[in-house]
């Protein structure tokens, strides 16, 4: 009994300590999964190769394909692991105010999560009004993430950024430690390095 109580005590004190900074905007709705293994997948794409095309349902309504931007816009695909979790819930609101920076590089964003559309609808509405499309890679579950080699063994995606130029070629890949939000400065540097 004494050992059992001790274990519970340890968990009750240690687990909350793993929380990252999350905006109070979501109140107590954020699920803290604690510290996770940094990367849990094997990348299947590389820089300078053609980006695998995909068509996914979007929160905004119509399905969206990567290919529809070919010849028109650079595309930064931002995969996040899961809705309603601490780091993910902050990442896209940051990109939301950075719209002018992306526009300056003729780049649009596509946010992708393996969550289903209703979940993504509710979650992104808590963020306010996002200027970019959010797509659901829910079914077949994580197929797009799998194609890119960033589907984790628990069915969530990595926190990954894939920058595709107007020719449909991958120019930058960053698979982040899932617990860490990638630096906006690093993204801007990648955009500056895009071929003109």
């Amino acid at each position, binding site marked *: *009994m*004494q050992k059992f*109580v*001790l274990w*519970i*005590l340890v968990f*009750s*004190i240690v*687990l*909350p*300590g793993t*929380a*990252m*900074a*999350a*905006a*109070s*905007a*979501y*109140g*107590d709705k*954020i699920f803290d999964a604690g510290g996770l293994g940094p990367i849990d997948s094997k990348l299947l794409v590389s820089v300078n190769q053609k980006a695998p095309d995909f068509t996914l349902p979007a929160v905004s309504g119509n399905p969206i394909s990567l290919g529809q931007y070919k010849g028109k816009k650079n595309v930064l695909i931002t995969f996040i692991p899961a809705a309603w979790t601490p780091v993910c819930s*902050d*990442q896209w*609101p*940051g990109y*939301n*105010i*950075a719209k002018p*920076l992306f526009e300056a590089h003729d780049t649009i964003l596509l946010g992708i999560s393996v969550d289903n559309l209703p979940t993504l609808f509710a979650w992104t509405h808590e*963020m*306010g009004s996002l200027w970019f499309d959010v797509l659901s890679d829910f079914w077949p579950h994580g197929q797009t993430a799998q194609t890119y080699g960033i589907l984790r063994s628990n069915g969530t995606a990595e926190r990954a950024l894939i920058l595709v130029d107007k020719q449909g070629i991958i120019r930058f890949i960053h698979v982040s430690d899932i617990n860490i*939000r990638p*630096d*906006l*400065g690093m993204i*801007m540097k990648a955009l500056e390095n895009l071929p003109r």
Partner: protein
Amino acid sequence: MRKCLVLLLFLGFLIPGATGLCEPRNEPLKMDLDFSLPAPEESAHRRYLGLETLDPFLLNQIQTKILIIEIFSMYCPICQREAADVNKMFELIQKNPNFKNQVRLIGIGAGNSAYEVNFFKETYQIEFPLFSDTKFVIHKKIGEVGTPYFIGLKPDKKQGLEIFYSQSGEIVDPEKFIEMLVKASGLKL
């Protein structure tokens, strides 16, 4: 021993609940304020803080009677939404002759790189000094609070700095907030 463990168990559940994302307002907390910040590059900001050199400085080196710290994040929707209100608070402080040289405001970007802090500053035209806490070092010391978070400090001869106020969430009304904060300090400015 068993009673002691049960009590500890109860506290273990209770305390994290009080320090999570939804802290009650005006709950002064024990925080580790023993950290240094780099001197701002802008000379106007160094003058504002009463710093004479470019060396890193401790909070208790800031020349002020009341120091307000905003823990923010460029990524936090509320911080974005209320940036104008925090700017208004700064403006009110600067316009009030009783507050101007006795109340100072700084912001610390939790988990924000220098680039991100600068982007936030430029986006919302923030005039008070902002600092980067890229790796959450300061954020951990102050208890991993949610953002935005406001801390009111005043000099204390024994402890160096006394936390007399802390608040999670929006300031709502800049004028009322600054009045309330000064009142809470117990100082006559």
